């Protein structure tokens, strides 16, 4: 009786142990078969997919500029600024710029001697603008016999704000420039820009044209 019980127990134990084993065994065989097949079918090299993201892009441009800015009635003075651009296509780009200049006395103030229309703080002229540029007349410029450089003229227009004479004024800007590529990623800019805004510091509102001529250096990245 005992041996019969023992046998039943043993069979049950063996079954319990084998049952889960059987599918595992099958799985293992299948895996082995698959890896053998894989080794034959899949070439022994790493596939390198080429995606556009792997290619370094250079659509951004950042740089500084300096030059002269003539602020209507307040003289011509040095201006410095920074610009940041994103090139959307070969033709169009978007540009954000910020510039600063310190204006000088009006002729009236100089002549009368004692009258000061603005405090020194109010004479600080700063602007920012967001503009759209159009690359126009792309081509080459030649320096001497052996050097040819890529260049492009651009037309640019936009809007922004100017902080001057203690108030902020909506300002349009309009201009053109030459971008001279020293290398693929380094460019010189020669830029002329008119900043047009309405000023009311002399009582009545007046549209002023403030012309800026600058030289700049930019990097593409």
């Amino acid at each position, binding site marked *: 009786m005992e041996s019969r019980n023992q046998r039943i127990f043993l069979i049950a134990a063996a079954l319990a142990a084998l049952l889960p084993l059987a599918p595992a065994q099958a799985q293992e065989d299948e895996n082995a078969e698959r890896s053998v097949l894989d080794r034959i079918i899949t*070439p022994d*090299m790493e*596939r*390198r*997919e*080429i*995606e*556009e*993201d*792997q*290619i*370094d*892009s*250079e*659509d*951004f441009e*950042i740089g500084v500029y300096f030059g002269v800015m003539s602020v209507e009635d307040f003289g011509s003075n040095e201006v410095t600024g920074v610009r940041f651009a*994103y*090139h*959307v*296509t*070969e033709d*169009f780009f*978007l540009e954000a710029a910020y510039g600063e200049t310190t204006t000088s006395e009006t002729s009236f103030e100089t002549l009368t001697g004692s009258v000061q229309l603005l405090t020194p703080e109010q004479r600080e002229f700063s602007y920012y603008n*967001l503009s*759209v540029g159009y*690359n126009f*007349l*792309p*081509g*080459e410029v030649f320096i001497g016999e052996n050097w*040819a450089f*890529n260049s*492009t003229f651009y037309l640019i227009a936009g*809007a*922004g*704000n100017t902080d001057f004479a*203690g*108030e*902020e*004024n*909506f300002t349009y800007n309009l201009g053109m420039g030459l971008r001279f*590529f020293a290398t*693929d*990623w380094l460019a010189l800019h020669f830029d002329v820009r008119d900043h047009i805004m309405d000023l*009311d*510091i002399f009582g009545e*509102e007046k549209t002023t044209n403030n012309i800026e001529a600058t030289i700049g250096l930019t*990097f*593409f*990245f």
Partner: protein
Amino acid sequence: MTSLLSVLLAGLLWGNASRADDAPLPMVTIIDPYIELHTGPGRGYPIVHVSEKGEVVTILKRRTDWFKVQTRRGKLGWVKRRQMRDTLGPDGQLVNLGDPTLEDFLGRRWEFGFTGGDFEGADSLTASLGYRFNKNISAEIKVGQATGSFSNSKLVSLALVHQPFPEWRLSPFFTLGASQIQTEPDATLVATEDRTDNALLVGLGAYYYVSRRLMLRLEYSNHLILTSREVNEEINEWKAGISVFF
């Protein structure tokens, strides 16, 4: 975005050396009958070399729709995307360097744009940055400035944008958000105090996909300023501008 940020940062730090990893540059086999290598990334720049079908070129970088390539013999030049569209990779697989489609637009996460317009009679200028959660919903932060005859305002707003039909070329959208408006009266007028108000905003508008990454955007927003007075004040804002996707 992380790649954009790293490129931005690397670009700022290292100028041109913005390749973060040392992965080998991609090499492709030309499928078009020939490709033209220009001196610069634009159709106005002269062609200095022509490579034939079957030649292998290394792609160095891209600017807008131009790829800078180097031939086996070391010639450098810029090739237009159209001629690179069907090149083959090292294992003979097709490489997808085609034009980004509207579908690609919808997969892009970040949007940057600026708009100009009218802010209840004042001239306004706004820059916006948007993040797209899925094809329909995006969040947007806007910073703007409006300059009027009597007062100037600065505005920051945070809004959810819903585009019910993102796949349409002219695609309408609705916005719902909150804004903070800081108003300072014109300095040449009698001295009054600056004030800051919170506002709720609802708006609607439309995108128009012009090409590639560029969109036009037209928008109307209504700001309901929550004042402590009896009546709440409303500001209507109209603006038009452009946006790009990253």
